[in-house]
């Protein structure tokens, strides 16, 4: 396994070789090479001190409640913040220590339930938040320790499977923990079972009762900024450096005086504590904890936030949370959903297709193909064009003249969906002109599937299909996410 001196990670002979002078020059050149508006922004961002970067996010977030009065938007902002807080913790586990923790949501749920047990009408205890929050955080950390401690082996690949199983076991447990008979104590209804633990108290912090959504918003924003600062300090300390070192090369880290297993466990426990804290806020906001809230769907959502933002990048988390939590929110309204889809297609085409005549050709070709197919179908099989778009608004109206909308679309759209996946995969294998040519029917097919199938399920399956696909595409195309810096790997 000896590395060739100066070998590049890829075997391509035309690649610059790492460590050789021209390569060094190109790395330095990249910094200068940021062009145009994005380049200027990038350079500004690079020179901004850390406190300034935090303000860039915190100030708009603090102003946000003042400019909007709509309850829903507000609540959405609050949930986004909670998810961002949750993502901060996962970022330590995945981004810093490189551990795949698939039971992360269970710690979030644990926080909500634990707080519910300490302070709710359900349990009969009413602890003030200044005591309850530290207790929940410590208990979450202890649970993480208990799960991570049993074996050194657990901190490798097995961690993923054990934590995934743990997440599942947690849901089973809270679903049924209302009818357990404990020795000595007897029957205790711990979690309310499938109905959930209700009547959770609002946070009561030194006499300040947090009740309205607005108050929760500011409380969570404060908590988020605080956790982010603390994490930043940890990141710049001996522990943070050791985490990054062991992500780079665990063996070298171990030989260089870092107790790798203990550090991994520490990151894992750290994540668990953060998740439990976020869970406390979530439980108080919802005034209840329900088993269904802590499922795999949320796990994928939080992973998508961390990966999209760029694992290891704190700033990326915020943007990741806004995108991953925001887009599905927009998808709920069929009118907005139409816009989201076509804008997204346009953005992707615009970003990937150069020069612009090629782009124009693809767009024109797609719509032209649509009109042609529509005309043929109108004449031969009118049933293919009798249906309606699942969307609403001007856009949905506009597509009716060039997208086939069968009166009973289910079956044909199902087939089209499968073919679309095949077509998209095949597209990645094609080159140059062929790819552009193949793009035309593929885009049309995508529009067809969207109008006839996906738009009907935007709140459920479609959203998660897109999240799943997002993870795969990001990992393959841009593993550093939107904000992470590209990493150099030598294998």
């Amino acid at each position, binding site marked *: 396994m000896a590395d060739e001196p100066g070998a590049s990670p890829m075997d391509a002979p035309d690649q610059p070789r790492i460590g*050789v002078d021209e390569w060094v020059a190109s790395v*330095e050149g990249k910094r200068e090479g940021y062009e145009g508006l994005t380049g200027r922004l990038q350079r500004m961002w690079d020179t901004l001190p850390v406190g300034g970067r935090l303000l860039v996010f915190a100030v708009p977030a603090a102003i946000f409640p003042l400019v909007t009065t709509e309850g829903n938007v507000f609540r959405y902002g609050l949930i986004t913040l909670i998810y961002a807080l949750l993502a901060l913790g996962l970022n330590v586990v995945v981004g810093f220590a490189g551990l795949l923790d698939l039971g992360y949501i269970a710690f979030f749920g644990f926080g909500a339930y634990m707080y519910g047990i300490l302070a709710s009408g359900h349990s009969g205890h009413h602890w003030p938040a200044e005591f309850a929050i530290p207790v929940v955080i410590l208990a979450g950390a202890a649970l993480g320790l208990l799960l991570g401690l049993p074996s050194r082996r657990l901190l490798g690949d097995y961690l993923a499977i054990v934590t995934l199983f743990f997440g599942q076991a947690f849901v089973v447990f809270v679903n049924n923990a209302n009818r357990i008979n404990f020795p000595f104590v007897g029957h205790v209804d711990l979690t309310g079972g499938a109905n959930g633990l209700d009547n959770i108290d609002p946070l009561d912090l030194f006499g300040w009762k947090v009740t309205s959504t607005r108050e929760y918003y500011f409380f969570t924003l404060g908590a988020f900024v605080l956790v982010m600062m603390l994490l930043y300090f*940890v990141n710049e300390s001996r522990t943070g450096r050791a985490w990054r070192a062991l992500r780079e090369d665990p063996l070298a880290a171990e030989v260089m005086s870092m107790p790798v297993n203990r550090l991994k466990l520490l990151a894992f426990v750290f994540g668990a504590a953060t998740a439990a804290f976020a869970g406390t806020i979530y439980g108080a906001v919802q005034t209840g904890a329900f088993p269904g809230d802590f499922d795999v769907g949320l796990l994928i959502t939080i992973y998508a936030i961390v990966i999209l933002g760029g694992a290891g990048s704190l700033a990326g988390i915020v943007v990741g949370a806004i995108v991953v939590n925001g887009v599905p929110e927009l998808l709920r309204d069929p009118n907005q959903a139409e816009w989201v889809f076509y804008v997204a297609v346009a953005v992707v085409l615009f970003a990937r297709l150069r020069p612009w005549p090629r782009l124009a050709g693809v767009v024109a070709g797609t719509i032209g193909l649509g009109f042609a197919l529509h005309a043929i179908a109108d004449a031969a099989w009118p049933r293919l064009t009798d249906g309606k778009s699942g969307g609403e608004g001007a856009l949905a109206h506009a597509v009716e003249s060039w997208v086939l909308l069968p009166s009973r679309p289910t079956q044909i759209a199902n087939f089209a969906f499968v073919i679309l996946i095949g077509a998209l995969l095949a597209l990645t294998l094609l080159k140059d002109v062929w790819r552009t040519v193949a793009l035309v029917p593929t885009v049309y097919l995508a529009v067809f599937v969207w109008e006839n199938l996906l738009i009907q399920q935007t709140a459920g399956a479609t959203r998660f299909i897109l999240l799943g696909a997002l993870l795969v595409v990001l990992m393959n195309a841009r593993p550093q996410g939107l904000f992470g810096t590209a990493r150099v790997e030598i294998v």
Partner: protein
Amino acid sequence: MAKLLELRGVDKSFGGLTVISELDLHVNEGEIVSVIGPNGAGKTTLFNLITGVYRPDGGDILLGDESLLGLEPHEVTNRGVARTFQTLRLFLNMTVRENVMAVQYGKTRATVVESMFRLPRARREEQEIRRRAEEKLGFFGQRLVGYRWDQPAYSLSYANRRRLEIARAMATEPRILLLDEPAAGMNPAETHEITQLIGKLREDGGYTILVIEHDMHVVEGISDRVIALDHGVKIAEGSFDAVATDPRVVEAYLGLRKAETK
């Protein structure tokens, strides 16, 4: 002179294949000892045994009077053994300075909570870590000058990566440095420089050094004593001239049959 590092009858085999057999070896305080031998002689395994990456099947490894057996690699490092890797295992995506700062983990004590809230001890240690990192990097003078310190390690040239590996090993404040082929893949000028550097490490840095090296010019230039290994067995030991002309060493390297060399 007192023995700093001593191996007594160390054995190691992998699934029936004996890699190190009944090896006795010692390095005195302040000495530079070179280990030579053909590929597969067990040299790197020797380093892995000393640093605790592998557990020996038999025998004992002592640092001073203390046995290193059964210790985790990071504990061995904390006792004062530091190494470099033949294959270069830097933390590539961290800056040059961070590479040297990170390895002082074992020398510092601030807990996560202290770091999180920037309590006095954490801040004090942080300054000390930074100072020590710059001191070690400064050892390389013009070769690793200041403006490179904040660049990622992957942007370094090959020779500079070797230097950074040595700086990183020095930053763990070892009593003995194990260098695994420090001159591998270097051009003659750089090789000459490395030879001088190793000498300087002892003169100015006061380190005891055990080095694996293929390049005989380097070995000749630096060694107080040379040990030759072949198939995990020590076949010769002594001054460079004595070992280099030892028929068994020549045979091991050139693969000549016994009859012809005798």
